[in-house]
């Protein structure tokens, strides 16, 4: 679950920077799938950055998975990040690590046993259909394959909160459907999932509660 109360966010200096979010308040319970809608520049990526702790709100109150983010110490934020998965539009894969090591990265940072890591990575890579590309480096993969690796890395540690920014962009229709099925399955298991998109067709095809932003303001909350 996460709660935002009167949250604002500006790029650069908090007082003089360009406002990306203005006075957004949200209260989302644990579990379930939600769309995050809005045109380009609406503030979707900013909201996802705040939810994935990659940006700090300029003002307001942010509580994620029971942790008051604005007051939390750095160590507590690091522990909280291990419970949050995120998928970015630019994939953020490390070019000098192969697919296996990229996907295993979150588990290694949690000091899991190597045998367990190997088992988990093989299982998730089989699910995303890349079990034969474990030794490939990211630059050797297509955009869709890189997207699937990034998704595998985001879900391998079964996060309590998963945020994804346009995750279906680089995928074909079949892969996109498969991905959304997986997200729904994770949501049923208790993960809170927020997926940003401006693809109306996919939203109509896979209806779910939605949060809609426009010019940094919350315009509709169907959660």
């Amino acid at each position: 679950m996460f709660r935002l109360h009167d949250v604002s966010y500006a790029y650069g200096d908090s007082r003089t920077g360009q406002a990306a979010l203005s006075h957004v308040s949200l209260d989302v319970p644990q579990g379930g799938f939600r769309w995050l809608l809005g045109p380009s520049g609406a503030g979707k990526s900013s909201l996802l950055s705040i939810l994935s702790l990659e940006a700090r709100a300029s003002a307001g109150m942010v509580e994620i998975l029971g942790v008051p983010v604005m007051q939390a110490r750095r160590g507590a934020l690091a522990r909280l990040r291990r419970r949050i998965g995120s998928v970015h539009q630019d994939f953020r894969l490390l070019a000098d690590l192969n697919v296996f090591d990229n996907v295993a990265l979150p588990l290694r940072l949690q000091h899991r046993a190597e045998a367990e890591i190997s088992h988990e990575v093989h299982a998730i890579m089989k699910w995303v259909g890349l079990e034969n590309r474990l030794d490939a480096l990211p630059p050797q993969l297509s955009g869709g394959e890189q997207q699937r690796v990034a998704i595998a890395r985001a879900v391998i540690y079964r996060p309590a909160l998963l945020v994804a920014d346009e995750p279906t962009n680089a995928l074909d229709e079949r892969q996109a459907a498969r991905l959304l099925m997986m997200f729904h399955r994770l949501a049923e298991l208790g993960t809170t999932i927020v997926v940003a998109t401006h693809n109306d067709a996919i939203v109509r095809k896979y209806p779910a509660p939605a949060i809609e932003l426009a010019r940094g303001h919350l315009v509709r909350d169907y959660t």
Partner: protein
Amino acid sequence: MARQRYHDGLALRQALPGRFLPFLVGAMSFLAALALAGGIAAHSLSQRWTHGAGTVTTMQVPAPDDPASRPATPAPSSGPPPTRIAVVLDLLATTPGIVSAHRLTDAELRALLAPWIEQTGEQTLPLPAVIEVRALPGHNPAPDLLAQLQARVPGVVMEHDSVWSDRLAALAGSLQGCALLAVLIVMTVAVCVVMAATRAGLQTRRQAIALIHSLGATDGYISGRFASRVTLLALGGGLCGSVLALPMLLVMSQLAAPFSALGDPAATAPMDWHDPLSRIDALPHALLWVLLALPPAAGLTGWITTQMTVRAWLRRLP
């Protein structure tokens, strides 16, 4: 476990290559070893001068075998008056603070004056008796003693060596200060070098760091990984610096031996170039400890500097 350590995406071998940093830290360690050697040598000479030459008083007694003048209150059963040298030696034996009073033998005296005697060709020159008086460290008996001696043995001359030894000790003190300053400068430069290398490494791997930070890596984990790498490199550099400084210090100790090891034939013997390590015993123990301590000191400096630099850099991240 090893796989975990080397596959976290930081790629520290790229971020902190193993040539630049060890070379610079090695050079700094080398300079620090030389500076510390200078400081230790200055301290050692200062000690020698303060506790050796500084405690020696030379006394000249002209006409040593002539009878001394009688004291104001002569002893009741006095025989023939004692010689001047006997009076001086008696007085020295009863003066507190004096450790020894050695009258130079005729042979010692002639050996001492040989260059002048040989030059003049004069063998029958009347020579004064010379007494080498050693006092306790920091004790200068000259002022009181001279007045007493002058009363009984007129013409006695005393030369206390503390005048020049004090000046030399002051010089040694300032040399120690310079050595300390040099070590501080070397340490400052070493810290700056480590900081610059670490920042360059952080900049090189900033995307990977931002990623593993977003995946939950703590500041302590990231700074620890960088600090471990830098410590290893600094340790290696420090070791090289110490090892390379050793032959230089051996040569310097050989060159300085005539000043620091007077009268020690083993120390002043020419170096055996086939076995230079045989001279290690001639180096002060403090210097050997310094050479041993330099690599861990370099490693510790690297570890602390890197921890602080990385943690400060990570503060930019949310």
